[in-house]
């Protein structure tokens, strides 16, 4: 199902013409209203009138998370405060939060894009949306809320937490669409089971999950345990919030990026070079309709890939692949780019490992050595040395065959890898270069 046929199924030439016009307007506006952008553009020797074709986007300098922090709280706003009607902020797990603003029209645009998102995931007017994304500074809750209202569906603004009450409401109110983070979806499933409530008896048909990276394996688990079709949604507050891209229920194969509002690029995380369609790299976004908080070539640090082929759902807009990891975690081991998330998927596929692992990089002589520490669990434990050693050798072989890099796998005691509340520390780099 498609909410906005005109813009979601537009021929690419027409779409690109709109993108160019909107990009030119955005670039001219930020140059004249945001001192940061004017300084950056001047340093790069580029003027708004140099943007003649879409590919000229590559002439513009990148914007980094640190730039947003340096201009905390309102330095990146492109309109005076009397035009700002909403303020959100990122969680700020690694420093000060990032503050973003919206004009009344930005809020309308966002509602439109979230209505498209909900529709792509199979939501109709008659549906009831159980919105368990947090309401507050975080963009998830209000983003879904406004989209559901714009679409005309009913929304239960339950927000996060109090899981037992959530299960009771799921049972009594009969919601048909669930929106929350994928990890919370699994948490609710466990709580429901403990309470003797089966998702088979609930009315859910679809779920829209995002705001954190998840895997295909996790999708299968959610679909099985919650008895729903699970769609991946992408967004970040710096660009807008949820509703930047969504999977369609028809194909569940890549997330459709709403290109009439955002221009996505894939770049090489080290060199910054723009990469062609189909090549994995770091996602970069330029907003082309945002008024209060436009961003130019914003480095998301998320790793993905773009596919331009039209989808069988009918949409012509480009699709981005599931997020594969973070570019700031990238390691270069003897010239090979290695992402911890790639090693994680090999670990998960090799045996029934717990996902507790850590990568340790050392320089031995002139060579980089990568050691993968994996915690022993009861499923793999044996009282015989040879069995444990063969687990180590198998994993080394699978990593070598999949990533092309030689590692040393070392089994360690349970709970010996440090747990952290938020993001796990996956890499210890002991090289002094």
């Amino acid at each position, binding site marked *: 199902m498609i909410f906005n046929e005109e813009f979601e199924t537009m021929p690419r030439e027409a779409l690109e013409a709109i993108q160019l016009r909107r990009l030119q307007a955005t670039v001219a506006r930020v140059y004249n209203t945001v001192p940061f952008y004017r300084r950056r553009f001047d340093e790069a020797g580029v003027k708004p009138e140099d943007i003649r074709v879409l590919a000229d986007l590559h002439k513009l300098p990148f914007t980094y998370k640190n730039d947003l922090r340096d201009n905390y709280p309102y330095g990146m706003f492109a309109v005076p405060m009397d035009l700002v009607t909403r303020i959100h902020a990122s969680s700020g797990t690694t420093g000060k939060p990032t503050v973003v603003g919206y004009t009344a029209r930005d809020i309308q645009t966002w509602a439109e894009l979230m209505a498209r998102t909900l529709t792509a995931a199979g939501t109709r007017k008659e549906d009831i949306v159980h919105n368990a994304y947090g309401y507050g500074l975080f963009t998830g809750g209000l983003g879904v809320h406004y989209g559901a209202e714009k679409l005309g569906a009913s929304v239960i603004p339950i927000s996060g937490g109090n899981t037992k009450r959530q299960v009771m409401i799921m049972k009594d109110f009969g919601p048909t669409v669930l929106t929350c983070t994928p990890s919370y979806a699994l948490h609710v499933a466990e709580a429901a089971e403990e309470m003797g409530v089966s998702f088979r008896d609930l009315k859910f048909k679809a779920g829209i999950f995002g705001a954190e990276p998840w895997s295909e394996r996790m999708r299968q688990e959610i679909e099985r345990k919650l008895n729903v079709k699970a769609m991946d949604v992408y967004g970040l507050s710096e660009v807008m919030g949820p509703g930047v891209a969504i999977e369609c229920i028809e194909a569940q194969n890549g997330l459709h990026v709403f290109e009439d509002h955002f221009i996505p690029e894939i770049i090489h995380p080290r060199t910054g070079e723009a990469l062609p369609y189909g090549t994995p790299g770091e996602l970069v976004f330029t907003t082309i309709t945002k008024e209060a908080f436009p961003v130019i070539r914003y480095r998301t640090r998320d790793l993905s890939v773009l596919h331009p082929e039209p989808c069988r759902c009918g949409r012509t807009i480009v699709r981005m692949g599931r997020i594969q990891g973070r570019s700031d975690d990238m390691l270069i081991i003897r010239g090979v780019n290695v992402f911890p998330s790639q090693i994680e998927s090999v670990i998960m596929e090799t045996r029934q490992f717990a996902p507790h692992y850590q990568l340790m990089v050392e320089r031995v002589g002139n060579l980089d050595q990568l050691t993968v520490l994996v915690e*022993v*669990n*009861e499923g793999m*434990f*044996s*009282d*015989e*040395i040879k069995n*444990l*050693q063969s687990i180590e050798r198998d994993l080394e072989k699978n990593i070598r065959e999949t990533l092309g890099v030689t590692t040393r796998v*070392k*089994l*360690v*005691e*349970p*709970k*010996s890898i440090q747990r952290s509340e938020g993001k796990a520390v996956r890499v210890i780099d002991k090289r002094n270069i």
Partner: protein
Amino acid sequence: MNVKQISIFLENKPGRLAEVTRIFEESQINIRALALADTSEFGILRLIVNDNEKAQRMLKDRGYTVGVTEVVAVEVEDRPGGLHRILAALSKDHINVEYMYAFVRQSGRNAVLIFRFDDVASAVKRLAAEGMRVIDGKDLYAM
């Protein structure tokens, strides 16, 4: 009938073994026999104790990975040729010994050999046929 042995994964670094013995001291668990197999990086501590369930629980509570294996305990006279009689009998049936260890009983007259076999049933049958004394689990725990 057979003897239960618990095994624990330990990293090869100072203090790890003492950590385990401290847990046993605190919970008043007595070790009947033990053997440590090790590589340069990790070790497997194999133990027979007087209270398996308690030992397992205490270790798991402290976050150790604990395995339980069935082993066979055989009593022989503590004199030259005692072990050879057993191994010769087993080799007749091509029964493979994965690993073994031994201790001498308090009386000093008999030794107890602990065997880990892949095929426990045939091993026990052969040992019995040769007239060897296979010790029951609960007798061993109480020794």
